[in-house]
């Protein structure tokens, strides 16, 4: 059976995200994470997180 090539215009077109869109998306994710932490009774501070990051035991 012969393969039938579809014209390039058919089907779902992929749109490439611009760098600005990608950055906006990551800022949104960061904000979601930040809010999740702030909802805690005792939110983690960056100073505490940095201490954990730099303690190689």
């Amino acid at each position, binding site marked *: 059976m012969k393969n039938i090539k579809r014209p390039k215009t058919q089907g779902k077109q992929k749109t490439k995200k611009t760098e600005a869109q*990608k950055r*906006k998306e990551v800022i949104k994710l960061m904000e979601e994470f930040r809010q999740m932490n702030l909802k805690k009774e005792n939110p983690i501070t960056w100073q505490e997180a940095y201490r*954990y990051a730099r303690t190689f035991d």
Partner: protein
Amino acid sequence: MPELLTNQYVLDASALLSTLYKDERESKHGQIITAIIKNPKNRLFCPSIIRYEFGNNLRTSLKNGRLSFPEAKAFIKVFLKWPLKIFEVDLHTTLHLAIKYNTTYYDASYLSLSYAKNAQLISIDKNLIRAFSSVQNNPS
């Protein structure tokens, strides 16, 4: 050190963590660094040690019951989306900088990458900022 390129930044763990977590002193560092990340013209670099620093942060936060597994997964999701270009640093240069400026090898990896990329180092760690100023004022 040659003149720094204005839109190239090396970000350390303290800078990146300040954009996600609360500040004990309620400073505006996190907001300023978030604005740097948001600007698509800015190119952001990190040495490969950042992966292990963040991994260690998550491991200890989980062990101490400060973070749940879904929260750790959310952190990794953010990390993977950050527009960071991660580089291996030159081992000779890094050792030279660690000795010359009396820093840990970990800190020197940030200095080394800033030097290689002519990039501004963004950090909230006073020791690292001090060392970076020394590199700028006293190159080679």
